[in-house]
């Protein structure tokens, strides 16, 4: 079995037939923005793109500004969508009805994809306001999730079922639901449950052994609700570090095992830990870390090229390390990563904005959920808060919308034009008191 949709099983044979059918229906363009919401359709679309020698673009968000930047990177990009209400401003192709393909025989022999085939580009926010593309070749993606499958214990002869609360377009969801299932003989559930009650029913609709692929935000909400889950063999968490307390609570409450994944958009996942038992991360086979000044670099294994990690890492053994938080300019909210430099660039590019700067609010002052938020101060005498909010929403992902957005007369820049952190925070504190 390859997938379940609303409890209905979809076999590998159906999948291959669907892939060939969709591949034949794709336009002559090379770059695909795969916006399919349904995880099965996303997977068919991804595989069909691969078979048709197309490259999938996987940006972390689909705001109008990001879409505009995508067209500069790849002018021939088209959007493949399964949502009639999709408003992405690209040539749109509707994901075809698959009823016809269901009766077609699966292709034989199966299509071979060579290891060095370029499968996807993922993007990180550059410091200049232009997203940076990173190549993902098929062979390395496969190597990565095969190690993951082994690490998670999925290769024990039983077929597991994966239920994900994360979208397939996000690097974590892409690896740990879509690719992981394809490469470990597991199946995934096509839905993307959101509320605790949805997670429970999605899990109940698929056979055991079950694995929940989720995030600290969802796990915290799940524990806080009274929702009962069916037997759960394994829980996977990524996108933000999980506290040891929360990890232990999850393990005890659901009588399960929780593994945490560490990685980045550029490298994909590179380490795991059983958070309830240890704070130390264990690297994937073949991946090495080395320190250089403040930075840590990853290379080897499935990592495409030597990559600077955006976190403060302390290497404790050849294959172990501790994570001490993010480097100062970076912001990670619910698995979406950006930099203050990128956000500042977007803010200052809005007509009418004279000056403006984002800053990070610590979790305890931002919200009870423990989620980090950003705020901003702005000098924009001719703009209303509503106008500025609307302009900003077209440019940045909703999770980075400043909360609050404070209007001030000028920013406390020093002689060199820099904004000392303390002055910025003092200004923000004063502005917040006024409102």
């Amino acid at each position: 079995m390859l997938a379940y949709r609303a409890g209905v099983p979809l076999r590998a044979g159906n999948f291959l037939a669907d892939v060939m059918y969709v591949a034949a229906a794709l336009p002559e363009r090379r770059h695909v923005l795969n916006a399919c919401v349904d995880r099965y359709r996303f997977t068919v679309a991804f595989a069909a793109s691969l078979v048709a020698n197309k490259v999938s673009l996987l940006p972390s968000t689909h705001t109008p500004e990001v879409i505009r930047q995508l067209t500069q990177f790849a002018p021939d990009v088209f959007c493949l969508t399964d949502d009639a209400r999709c408003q992405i401003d690209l040539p749109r192709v509707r994901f075809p009805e698959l009823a016809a393909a269901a009766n077609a025989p699966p292709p034989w022999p199966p299509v071979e994809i060579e290891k060095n085939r370029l499968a996807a580009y993922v993007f990180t926010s550059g410091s200049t306001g232009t997203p940076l593309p990173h190549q993902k070749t098929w062979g390395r993606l496969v190597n990565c999730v095969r190690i993951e499958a082994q690490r998670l214990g999925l290769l024990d002869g039983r077929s597991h079922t994966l239920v994900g609360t994360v979208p397939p377009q996000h690097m974590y969801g892409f690896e740990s639901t879509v690719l992981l299932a394809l490469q470990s003989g597991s199946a995934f559930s096509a839905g993307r449950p959101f509320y605790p009650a949805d997670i429970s029913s999605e899990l109940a609709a698929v056979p055991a052994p079950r694995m929940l692929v989720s995030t600290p935000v969802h796990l915290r909400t799940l524990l806080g609700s009274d929702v009962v889950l069916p037997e759960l063999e394994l829980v996977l968490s990524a996108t933000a570090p999980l506290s040891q307390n929360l990890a232990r609570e999850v393990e005890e409450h659901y009588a399960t095992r929780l593994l945490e994944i560490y990685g980045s958009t550029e490298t994909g996942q590179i380490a795991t830990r059983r958070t309830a038992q240890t704070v130390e991360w264990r690297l994937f086979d073949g991946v090495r870390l080395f320190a250089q000044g403040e930075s840590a670099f990853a290379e080897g294994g499935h990592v495409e090229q030597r990559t600077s990690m955006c976190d403060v890492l302390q290497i404790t053994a050849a294959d172990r390390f501790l994570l001490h938080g993010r480097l100062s300019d970076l912001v990670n909210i619910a698995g979406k990563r950006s930099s203050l430099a990128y956000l500042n660039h977007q803010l200052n590019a809005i007509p009418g904005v004279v000056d403006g700067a984002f800053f990070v609010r610590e979790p305890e002052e931002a919200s009870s959920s423990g989620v980090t938020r950003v705020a901003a101060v702005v000098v924009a005498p001719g703009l209303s808060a509503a106008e500025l909010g609307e302009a900003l929403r077209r440019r940045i992902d909703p999770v980075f919308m400043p909360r609050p957005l404070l209007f001030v007369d000028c920013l406390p820049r020093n002689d060199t034009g820099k904004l000392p952190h303390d002055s910025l925070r003092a200004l923000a504190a004063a502005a917040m008191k006024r409102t």
Partner: protein
Amino acid sequence: MSDKASPLRQPAPPADNAALQREVAGLIVAALNLDVAAADIDVQAPLYGDGLGLDSIDILEIALVVSKQYGIQLRADSEENEQIFRSLAYLADYIAAHRTK
């Protein structure tokens, strides 16, 4: 957003929901630590996007508060789900109709 009729839509919020609206507004402001006063939230403005500007993390947070306070487990696959967060008025109406405590 289309203005189609729905079972949840009511010409004017019943008087006894006004108190509930204020109560829910207070819960949202407290749970999300928003920089607005509960009384200042427009009961007809969307909670997502252009109105109060909440995102999906906030919606999960509100769902948790709603389940604890009123004994309602929200479901994304229920027909009403898209309507619930259309405004504070819709959310309060939904809670009034489904609360178990």
